[in-house]
Every structure is written in C-alpha cells, then in structure tokens.
C-alpha cells in the first residue's frame, strides 16, 4: 500500500500511515479549516488498509490539541479500527498525552468508553 506522510502545521496534525514499516500515527494539533477535507483521505486509506491489515496494528494518537470538529473525525478513525478489531484483526490503540494534561487524558478515557477496541493510555513528560 502507498504510504501517507503528512507533515503537521500549526493547525493540522502530522499523519504517518506506513503499513510496510508498521507505523500508524496521528500527532500534533488538529483544528483544520475544513475538517472533512483533511480527514477524508485518511479514512479512505484506513478503509482500504483494513482489508489487508498486518498481523498487529498498533495505532498511536499523540495529539496535543484538537477542536470539537476534529474530535468527531478522530472518533471515525477509532470506529474504523473497532470494525477491524471486530472482524478478527489484532488492533491496539495507544493514546499518548502530556503528563500534566488532564483534558487530553480524559479525552482518551472517553474514546476508550465509546469504542470496543484494546486501548492503552500512555502519559509522557513535557520538555
């Protein structure tokens, strides 16, 4: 499959989807001007990937900020991963949050409640 490699900006996240190297990561800030346009290709890629998923898909979210419009698109990503998991694929979501950021930690807890997929919360120290 082709590799998705989007370099983040101050309002869009970095996205790396590289099935061959087993990297699936969304990180940084997400408040794009047009959320649907930004996330559509990402969701389409996941849809195609779900059919030929590798042995274990470890999906990393390492966001420092996202607006509510993005939160809906992040749920769509998670629902896609849930679908994969329910169809028998091995999937793990790792939700990384800055150790002092309770809101980002809580956002992870809320997603973990909503979707039925193995979910790990990981805090990391701020510089």
């Amino acid at each position: 499959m082709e590799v998705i490699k989007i370099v983040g900006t101050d309002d869009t996240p970095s996205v790396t989807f590289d099935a061959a190297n087993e990297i699936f990561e969304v990180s940084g800030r997400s408040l794009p001007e047009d959320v649907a346009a930004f996330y559509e290709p990402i969701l389409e890629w996941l849809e195609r990937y779900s059919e030929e998923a590798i042995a274990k898909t470890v999906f990393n979210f390492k966001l420092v900020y996202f607006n509510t419009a993005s939160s809906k698109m992040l749920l769509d990503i998670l629902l896609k991963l849930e679908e994969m998991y329910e169809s028998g694929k091995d999937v793990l979501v790792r939700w990384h949050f800055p150790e002092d950021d309770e809101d980002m930690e809580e956002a992870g807890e809320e997603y973990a409640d909503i979707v039925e997929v193995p979910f790990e919360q990981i805090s990391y120290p701020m510089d």
Partner: protein
Amino acid sequence: MAGKGADTKDFLDFVYSFHESMEQHKVLLVYEGEITHQITKAFTSLTENNMEVEEEAHSTQKKVFHVMVECLQNVGKHAENYRKNESRKDGKGAFLLSRTEEDYFITTGNKVNSEKVSEMVEVLEKINSLDRDGLKKLYKLQIREGRLSNKGGAGLGFIDIAKKTGNSLNYKFIPINSDFSFFVLSCKISRNNN
C-alpha cells in the same frame, strides 16, 4: 466613518470613551468583523504567546486556547450576516478577550436568526443544568450520534466549553428586529484551577 465638523469630534470622542470602556472591562483583545480561519489562528497564537510571556499556568493556557477556538469557529460558522443574495462568507461578529485577577473571559456577539433562539436557549439551559458527569454523558451521546454539519460543526462546542471550563455558559439574546437577535456568549475560565 468620521465626517466633518461635529461628526469628526464625536468620532474622536468615541475613540476615547471606547478606550476607557475597554480599560474598565479589562479587555485585552477586541475585534469586530468577519471571523475567518486566519483570524482564529492569529488571535489564538497571539494570546498563547502573551500567556506564555506572563507565565500563566499551563492548564489555564490550554483551556483559554481551546475555548477561543470553539467560540471563534462558532461565530465564523453560525453568525447570520444577513447580506442576502451573496455567496456565503465567514460570519461576522464581535470577539473580546478580557482578564481579571481571577478569571479569563472569552466573549462573542453575533446576529442569529430569531427562529433559532428558542432552540438555542433550550440547548444552553440544558448544558447549564448539568454537572460534570452529566456533561460527559451528553458529550459522548452527541459525538456518537451527531453528524458533522455542512458547516463543519459537530454540535459539541457548547458542551465542550462547559465541560472544560467547569463554569456555566453566560448568555443573552437581544432582539434586533423581528428577524434577528444578537447573541452574546461569555465563557469564564478560572485562572487558579491548578
């Protein structure tokens, strides 16, 4: 704009009284006009830098940033400009950021269609009646069942602001005429919450 004679004098006086009012209400940033994505980015990054310089608590900085984005995007997406027969532009409105010893206030004002007022009051009152757990439940319900509107909104902004700030949403609808009302929303972020 300013004309000649008495008009000019009035206008110059207006600038002074405006300045005095801004000081009195502890306004740090004020804007009136179209709220575009560029404006949202410029204001949030300016405010972020200022808070960093003033060593505001990290958690307060994040909440102020978050609420600013949601409020500015609300106005940009939902304000009724009532310029008829014109292709849709970014919504116009007022934006104010103010700060007291204890709190930050993010306040927006924009025109809304009067038909929408009762529905908005219902939503706002519902949010204000809920405690933290209630807000979390409502958020989860809305994110699951709500759909992204054609304006790119998820219907989560007000709920999220109330949830993240822990304060109720202070609002008012001021009738302009039979078609439109002016919607003022003021969100409070406490500075000492961490």
